[in-house]
């Protein structure tokens, strides 16, 4: 009965979303404030009804209702309760429902926090979000309904993939989706600005905080996924350039470019058309990412052929969304104008290069990810594009980007001069070069790539400190002076320092990690990176829905015991699937990482992986700094008081345009 309620709720939500997509937009076109007034109530109603649907599905999972096909495929009565709830987004259908649910959350948030927006603008934004929701609800109801029944009901479920039974993976998909769907707000703002024909710095100021919040969620989501891969897949990698990862990385790159170009649009009223294009691109890539990962196309193009209805719907949906927004862009963009002028050497031109580099990086990931798919679909045979491709392309693209990152905040808007910049950064450049040459020698091994990584990180840190010192220069109380720069300035610099920390992590792990695969018998000791690892054998330990062989490894350094590690090899009872559970002793400068391979037949020995991962946690700490930086920058005063100032800023923006034109 309850699944039928859920199903019915989805149908009602579909009708509401159609209304939400039609009435406010028609109202805005005819300047009819009654029609526009429906935007908010319908958005709230849709949110409530989708909540009903998602509660029904959670209920089916928690109560082990295996007459629901989706539950039978992704859960089991032995599954611990928290994973039964998380199993909701363990597959295609439930993920779509989660996506739609998050979309309605964002819509209600926009409705609640944008009361100061002109009614026309707000109606259009909510209308566009309603149209997106219509697409997803239709897709769910026509091809991927999570409430489809399984008759007769299964005795028990097929269980959630053991890889997904992990706290990291409970949080990863919702975070990622918060990011994906969050870009729909930037997209809707861009489309409604195109529809209304009004694109100025006020528009940029409105959509900036939303875009940044979405970007923060996406950053956290990607970092969580990477951490999970590191400790759960059992071989210590943190990024594999796997198509599934690339699918989330592409919107991140486009979103990062968008954040920067929005800054220019807000401050200088420039890059307007480009910003709109980026907003469209970021959301389109989010859609692509959602579909690529869950529809099964990546594992095989033939997934489309086995379920042609889904494939055709996805392709149509993508074509409609991307095609119609680009058409609208082509039709309206000429009216937007180019905005403020700037010189060859200026902060604008540096942010322009930032955008070009990020866009090119995004395109190269896109190409590498989809190339095998196209070749296969066109009948040229199967091939794979591996990590070496991405590493070869990425390092040369990112290195100038990071160098530019140190220069951008120092350069003036509109007009800067090279001698002036040179005067301010020469010592920073010399200092980071010296560090880059010397530090690897101290660490024991010097390679060009390690030196490059250290150069980039040192450069970012030093230029950031220099710039901060300049901005708080003067006499008087230091605390007072530290308050002079805005919060968004601190946010930006914190995020940039996060990149530096991230680069240090990547460089150190790549350059100095020790990886040893060894055969270890009980009592054997192996040496790695100055640590001794003693293997004390394996005992059997039962778990809630698995049995584990748990090894004990005692780690010591210079004769003193550092820690004990307990890596496991689990066998999940329902699927019979084996799983490696690594044991990690995290540390500020290094992780000690041990995982069990397989038992060696006829002996008590095991194949064991023993890794020392220097500075690996800095990778995720850097991501966290970026996310906090994003959060800090949107807590800036000017976003909190923009309600009052919206009007004056609009006229100010016009003035600015006239002056620079």
């Amino acid at each position, binding site marked *: 009965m309850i699944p039928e309620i859920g199903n019915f709720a989805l149908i009602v939500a579909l009708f509401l979303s159609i209304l939400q997509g039609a009435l406010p937009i028609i109202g805005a076109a005819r300047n009819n404030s009654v029609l526009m007034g429906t935007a908010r109530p319908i958005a709230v109603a849709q949110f409530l009804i989708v909540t009903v649907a998602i509660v029904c599905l959670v209920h089916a999972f928690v109560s082990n209702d295996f007459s629901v096909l989706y539950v039978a495929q992704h859960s089991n009565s032995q599954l611990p309760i928290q994973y039964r709830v998380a199993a909701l987004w363990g597959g295609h259908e439930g993920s779509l429902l989660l996506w739609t649910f998050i979309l309605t959350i964002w819509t209600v948030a926009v409705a609640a926090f944008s009361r100061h927006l002109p009614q026309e603008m707000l109606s259009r934004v909510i209308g566009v979000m309603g149209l997106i929701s219509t697409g997803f609800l239709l897709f769910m109801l026509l091809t991927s309904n999570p409430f489809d029944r399984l008759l007769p009901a299964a005795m028990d479920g097929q269980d959630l993939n053991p890889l997904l039974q992990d706290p990291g993976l409970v949080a990863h998909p919702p975070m990622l989706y918060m990011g994906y769907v969050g870009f729909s707000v930037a997209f809707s703002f861009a489309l409604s600005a195109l529809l209304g024909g009004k694109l100025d710095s006020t528009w940029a100021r409105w959509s900036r905080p939303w875009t940044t919040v979405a970007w923060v969620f996406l950053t956290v989501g990607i970092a969580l996924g990477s951490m999970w891969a590191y400790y759960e897949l059992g071989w210590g990698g943190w990024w594999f350039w796997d198509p599934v990862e690339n699918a989330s990385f592409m919107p991140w790159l486009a979103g990062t470019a968008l954040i920067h170009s929005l800054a220019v649009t807000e401050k200088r009223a420039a890059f307007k058309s480009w910003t709109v294009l980026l907003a469209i691109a970021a959301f389109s890539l989010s859609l692509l990412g959602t579909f690529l990962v869950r529809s099964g196309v990546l594992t095989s193009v033939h997934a489309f052929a086995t379920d042609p209805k889904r494939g055709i719907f996805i392709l149509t949906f993508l074509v409609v969304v991307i095609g119609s927004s680009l058409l609208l862009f082509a039709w309206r963009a000429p009216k937007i104008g180019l905005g403020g002028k700037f010189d060859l050497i200026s902060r604008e031109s540096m942010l322009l290069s930032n955008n070009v580099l990020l866009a090119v990086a995004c395109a190269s990931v896109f190409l590498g990810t989809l190339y095998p798919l196209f070749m296969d679909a066109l009948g040229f045979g199967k091939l794979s594009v591996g990590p070496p*491709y991405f590493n070869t392309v990425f390092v040369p693209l990112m290195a100038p980007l990071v160098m530019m990152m140190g220069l951008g905040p120092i350069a003036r808007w509109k007009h800067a001069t090279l001698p002036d910049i040179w005067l301010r950064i020469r010592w920073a450049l010399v200092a980071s070069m010296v560090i880059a040459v010397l530090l690897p020698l101290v660490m024991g091994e010097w390679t060009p790539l390690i030196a490059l990584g250290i150069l980039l990180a040192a450069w970012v840190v030093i230029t950031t400190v220099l710039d901060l010192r300049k901005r708080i220069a003067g006499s008087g109380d230091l605390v007072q002076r530290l308050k002079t720069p805005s919060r968004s300035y601190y946010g930006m610099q914190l995020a940039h320092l996060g990149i530096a920390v991230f680069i240090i992590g990547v460089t150190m792990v790549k350059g100095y990690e020790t990886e040893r695969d060894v055969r270890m018998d009980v009592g054997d000791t192996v040496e790695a990176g100055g640590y001794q690892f003693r293997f004390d054998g394996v005992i059997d330990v039962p778990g809630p829905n698995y049995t584990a062989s748990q090894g004990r490894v005692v780690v010591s350094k210079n004769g003193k015991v550092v820690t004990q590690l307990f890596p496991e090899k689990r066998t999940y009872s329902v699927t019979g699937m084996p799983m490696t559970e690594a044991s990690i002793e995290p540390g500020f400068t290094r992780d000690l990482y041990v995982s069990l*391979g397989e038992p060696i037949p006829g002996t008590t020995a095991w194949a064991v992986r023993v890794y020392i991962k220097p500075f690996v946690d800095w990778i995720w700490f850097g991501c966290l700094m970026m996310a906090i930086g994003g959060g800090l920058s949107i807590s800036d005063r000017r976003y909190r008081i923009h309600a009052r100032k919206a009007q004056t800023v609009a006229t100010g923006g016009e003035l600015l345009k006239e002056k620079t034109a």
Partner: protein
Amino acid sequence: MTPRKKRTIFIVGGLALVGAAVGLVLFALKNNVSLYFTPTQVYKKEVPENRSFRIGGLVEKGSLERDKDGLTVRFRITDTTNTMKVVYVGILPDLFKEGKGVVAEGKLEDGNTFHASEVLAKHDENYMPPEAADAIKKAKAAKAEAAQSSNGAPAAYSVTK
């Protein structure tokens, strides 16, 4: 500097950058795409020499052997028509099993042994890597064809060895 000159510099600079990026992408693609072959193609010597490639198929039942060091493993990959010997040093992935699908990346050395640098067996128990599935499909199709041309003679014998 005139606005026109400025615009030219922007355009030329942008094009140069994009051009360099395209060159980089093409260079990287050329060197880092690994082609995929079936054991039958290896048997027919259609594979490149001294270049890394991927093969896919099933791990032949009963073929897995372990050297005394515990880390060197030898097994055979089959597409049900032809098989090939594989050597790998290291720890096999969780889902590696005899009779299940597998994809290995590496080089062919001393004529007939595939030295794998990486062995992939991802996803769940019943999942078959698309490359492996494809290899078996191709081999079966070849058998069927051979069976037709030789008027229904048992194909398996006519093709293998």
